[in-house]
């Protein structure tokens, strides 16, 4: 892959980071091969994740207490907006389940002026193998999001997204814990931003499976979404 100059310096990758010291170094190095600007928002990790990310070349913004992934993303957005040269932001999970090539293709679609927001979807092509139960839960999450937000997506809870600066200023996340994924979708819908979906691959490794969201957590997401 091309280094440094591959992607202009107007793109920031925002990585919400919590207790991922084992993998975040590789994730950041992989990202930095394409995107020179990577910011990890460390959400109060106690396993040295922040140091690992910094050593790998990421800027680190550190929450001194754990606030939740939604809060971390919004902090990352605020950080990006402070850089006047920033035009695009990518959200990218710290556990290595996304691929950098997908992120790059999504930014390119923003750059081409196709949309203000590009959502990653694991259901648009056959690359990602999803276990049946997980598929069912994700499908119902999608049905719920489509019903309540008016935005028709195929994958509601994918951590890989690309947003233009315009979208960053108009989407403000107030769901601090897990319900932020639906919140982004609904705010994109109500702000009448232009959006597209992009097929992405999710790499379910043993690591991500062990760390990943328990399906029970979808109950929490539902409650947070309804009660606000």
């Amino acid at each position, binding site marked *: 892959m091309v280094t440094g100059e591959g992607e202009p310096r107007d793109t920031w990758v925002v990585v919400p980071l919590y207790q991922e010291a084992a993998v975040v170094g590789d994730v950041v190095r992989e990202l930095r091969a394409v995107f020179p600007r990577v910011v990890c928002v460390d959400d109060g990790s106690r396993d040295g994740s922040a140091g690992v990310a910094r050593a790998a070349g990421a800027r680190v913004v550190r929450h001194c207490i754990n606030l939740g992934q939604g809060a971390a993303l919004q902090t990352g957005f605020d950080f990006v907006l*402070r850089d006047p040269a920033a035009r695009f932001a990518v959200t990218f999970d710290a556990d290595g389940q996304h691929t950098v090539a997908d992120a790059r293709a999504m930014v390119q679609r923003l750059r081409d002026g196709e949309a203000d927001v590009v959502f990653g979807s694991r259901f648009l092509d056959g690359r990602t193998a999803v276990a049946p139960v997980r598929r069912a839960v994700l499908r119902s999450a999608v049905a719920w999001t489509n019903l309540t937000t008016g935005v028709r997506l195929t994958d509601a809870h994918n951590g890989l997204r690309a947003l233009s600066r315009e979208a960053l200023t108009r989407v403000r996340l107030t769901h601090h814990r897990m319900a932020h994924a639906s919140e982004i979708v609904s705010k994109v819908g109500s702000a009448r931003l232009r959006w597209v979906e992009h097929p992405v691959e999710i790499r379910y490794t043993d690591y991500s499976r062990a760390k990943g969201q328990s399906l029970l957590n979808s109950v929490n997401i539902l409650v947070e979404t309804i009660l606000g």
Partner: protein
Amino acid sequence: MLIQALLLVAFAVIGTLLVRDATDVRHQAVRRILIVLFGLFAAVSVLVPGSVSWVAERLGVGRGTDLVLYGTVVAFLGFVAASYRRMRALESRLVELTRRLALDEAREDELEVALRRSREGAGDEPGARPGEGARPGPGAERR
């Protein structure tokens, strides 16, 4: 029956309380009035033992004890709803505070790095990589 209607209304009110913001002063005033009423109710039921049963019969509840139980359930649910809202509001403020702190810290780091770089740039030969080989001044390395 009258009591059923009353209970349903109470649950509906609590339901709306759960999804609406309950941090303004009017809500606080209502909460305090309710607490005072609750205290008066307790005092009356002690001073005039038959009164609760009398009210219960008018409302279509068999015994005063049952009415007290229903009242307790309603009060408890209301308490749960109100504290959920207040916790959420508190959490939001905590998030704002922590975020501000995190971003300010990041800016400080940025300035520190820039300062160190410019200092090294002035002293050493140009092209020296910042942070490598250059001797940091006293207290410059924090991590």
